[in-house]
């Protein structure tokens, strides 16, 4: 299997499904619209030619300034016998943040989707048990979204004067940089 065969097969089976395709660092990446995603993955797994029997990974990415393409869900599939990896991406916006689940196709997707939900709040439609997995159930936000701070507010042993910690990370760095730059001649 190589890139051409795969793209052609997808094209002939699902015409026009691929929005963009690229190959960063040798890994074929296809962008698929949400409605087509599940059918495509299903076919990729079950078709004897495609044979992507292994789901390597699912994760979410947050791009705050992209409007209705704010959240990406990235799938890594692997055809073990041909040793061919494929990356699929799909984008959703904040309002319509639903992606179909692929739990029935790969059991492994169950927790990966729960994790993605836990971090980004992306809702996987049809997931049998979509609830938080790593964080506490009581948590009321999705921590991996870029707008939320990393730090814990309860840290007491840190002297904020030195870290410029007003919830703004950049200040910290600038402070230190200024501190450092002043002595560059050293």
């Amino acid at each position, binding site marked *: 299997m190589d890139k051409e065969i795969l793209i052609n097969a997808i094209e002939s089976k699902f015409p026009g499904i691929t929005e963009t395709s690229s190959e960063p660092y040798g890994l074929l990446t296809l962008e698929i619209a949400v409605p087509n995603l599940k059918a495509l993955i299903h076919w990729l797994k079950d078709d004897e030619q495609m044979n992507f029997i292994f789901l390597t*990974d699912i994760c979410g990415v947050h791009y705050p300034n992209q409007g209705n393409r704010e959240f990406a869900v*990235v799938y890594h599939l692997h055809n*073990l016998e041909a040793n061919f990896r494929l990356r699929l991406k799909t984008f959703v916006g904040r309002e319509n943040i639903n992606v179909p689940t692929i739990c029935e196709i790969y059991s492994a997707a169950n927790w990966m989707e729960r994790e993605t939900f836990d971090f980004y709040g992306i809702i996987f439609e049809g997931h049998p048990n979509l609830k938080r997995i790593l964080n506490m159930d009581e948590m009321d936000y999705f921590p991996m979204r870029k707008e939320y701070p990393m730090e814990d507010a309860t840290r007491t042993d840190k002297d904020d004067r030195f870290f410029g910690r007003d919830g703004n990370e950049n200040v910290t760095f600038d402070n230190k940089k200024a501190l450092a730059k002043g002595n560059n001649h050293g």
Partner: protein
Amino acid sequence: MDKSQQLVATDSMDGELATLNLGPTHPATHGIFQNVLTMDGERIQSAEQTCGYIHRAFEKIAERRPFNQITTLTDRLNYCSSPINNLGWDMTVEKLIGIEVPKRVDYMRVIIMELARISDHLVCNCVIGVDTGALTGFFYLFQERERIYDMFEEVCGARLTTNIGRIGGFERDFSPELYNKLNAFLKEFPKRLEDFENMLCRNRIFMDRTIDVGPISAERALNYGFTGPNLRAAGIDYDVRVMNPYSSYQDFEFKVPVGKSGDTFDRFNVRQEEIHQSLSIIRQALDKMPAGNYHADVPEFYLPPKQEVYRSMEALIYHFKIVMGETDIPSGEVYHAVEGGNGELGFYLISDGGRTPYRLHFRRPCFIYYQAYPEMIKGSMLSDAIVTMSSLNVIAGELDA
């Protein structure tokens, strides 16, 4: 299984089932997983898992740390084999930047990573022994693990959370002392391992405890995203080192051990054989160790030697730029996988050219395969559940990220 079922009533007497809370502070769950088991006497009817008890937000922290500081985070993913994580991360960044490292660095990395793999498998197999009640093997093998620690300490100055690699190579070259220790280890360790194997492997009590305990078929294992020794125990010889060789693994001869039915006994044996294979890889790497530098020649990313920093202005500027994280990192996205102690450890890195990753996702093998646990222990006994869990080698740091 069928044999034992004759002895225990398959249907409970009055339909009353007990709920047993296994963990999070149960000795066998290492304090971090919770399994709520529905028990029919000693038999497990169903299990529900909770995890996240040591969720530390690695991925969030990684978005706020420059590339070189992330090495300290990867240390704490699978802490039984930190160097594999460290070096895997370094290779990911090198892939992103496009750094070719000298062959010598590759070989040094292979030695370190295989030592780490041995130490990881040692922990797992010792713990299988401990959970079946044979504590002594643990003490024998942990002495050998100490020697691996000593070697890590010789290279990097720490035992467990090593922070061993640098982007572009190593912090320092292997010392002669390390070679002494390594040779002594290669000579004496197999004897200790043999003691351990003789005590357990063919002992019927142990075999009865592990054979057909927590089995998983190859097909289910793949579907669940198993990788590493646990997948190989089910009979599928998927190994990242062979399939997508990194760090010159293609130069080495080694076998990929597989099991038959993916039960605890198979997992134990696969790990045991992998230790032997790792030893052979280390020997080969030592024999073929090429001459050369212990780091790539990339002044933008690898810190200049200290003697120049102390003297020359140019080196000092580079030094500052690297430490401050002001070097230019290309933007792009890269997925790099290494064969960790428990399987395919993947780093999915999206860089926007900033000093920190835009997004860094770790494919943590433990997290992915641990969800198969309820399926694996269904219908087995409490003791089996515990042995199955230890043979899966679920590392909390990796599970909860």
